[in-house]
């Protein structure tokens, strides 16, 4: 197929595209773009806060681990003779804490 023939076939496609209905409103696209831009600016501003939240979470977890390690003999003394109920309650507490953290930090 030579170039003029191809151009003619493509012209036929363009003719078929001519009745594709009304175009989306440009004003809507403009305001949506402005809105997305504003959201991006807000996200940029809020980024240090989000980072600080994650850092505080990491510090809290590390501190808990260090404190547990330092007081391990005492903890062992408490948990050693504990029944299954205490272990289930502890596991439940951890799950609730996790869900609470997820709820607080969100997103």
């Amino acid at each position, binding site marked *: 197929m030579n170039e003029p023939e191809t151009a003619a076939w*493509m012209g036929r496609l363009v003719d078929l595209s001519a009745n594709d209905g009304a175009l989306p409103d440009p004003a809507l696209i403009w305001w949506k773009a402005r809105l997305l831009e504003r959201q991006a600016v807000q996200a940029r501003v809020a980024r240090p806060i989000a980072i600080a939240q994650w850092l505080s979470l990491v510090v809290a977890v590390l501190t808990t681990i260090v404190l547990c390690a330092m007081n391990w003999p005492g903890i062992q003394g408490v948990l050693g003779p504990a029944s299954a109920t205490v272990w289930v309650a502890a596991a439940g507490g951890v799950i609730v804490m996790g869900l609470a953290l997820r709820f607080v930090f969100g997103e």
Partner: protein
Amino acid sequence: MDQGEFTAFYHETAPALRGYIRRVSGDAQAGDDLLQETYLRFLRAKPPVDDRAAMKAYLYKTATAAIYDRWRKQRRERLWSLAFRFREEAPPETGPGDVTRCFQKLKQRERALLWLAYVEGYAHDEIAGTLDLNVKSVRVLLFRARRNLERILRQNGLNEVQP
């Protein structure tokens, strides 16, 4: 770019761009979504407004990227769907005179090449810039796209029909 400039640019470019998006993506339903996505990306990028031709080239480059992104996303989704694993997708049916469906049987890049070359009248270097291709390979790829279009038209009994 202020709202007035954007509206004028939109009315100037949107009808042809919608044709490009619909034909290259092969998805008439998604055409308007992709059109909006293209202009949103375009506005976010804040291109210089003094060079109309460069703006238009950038718009087509953005549209092509949006089409490819959507295609990749759909491919990922299909890979994970059970329907894809157990059912072969039927190729679109064609009938005499259905040049649109024949065009959709070409590869996405071939559709984009043919549209940019023969509808938009882009030069090879402009096509290369828009589709992220080597300038030298555009000539070869266009030749192959033309040959494939001819083959598909012939297979569907359209070679005897005058375009």
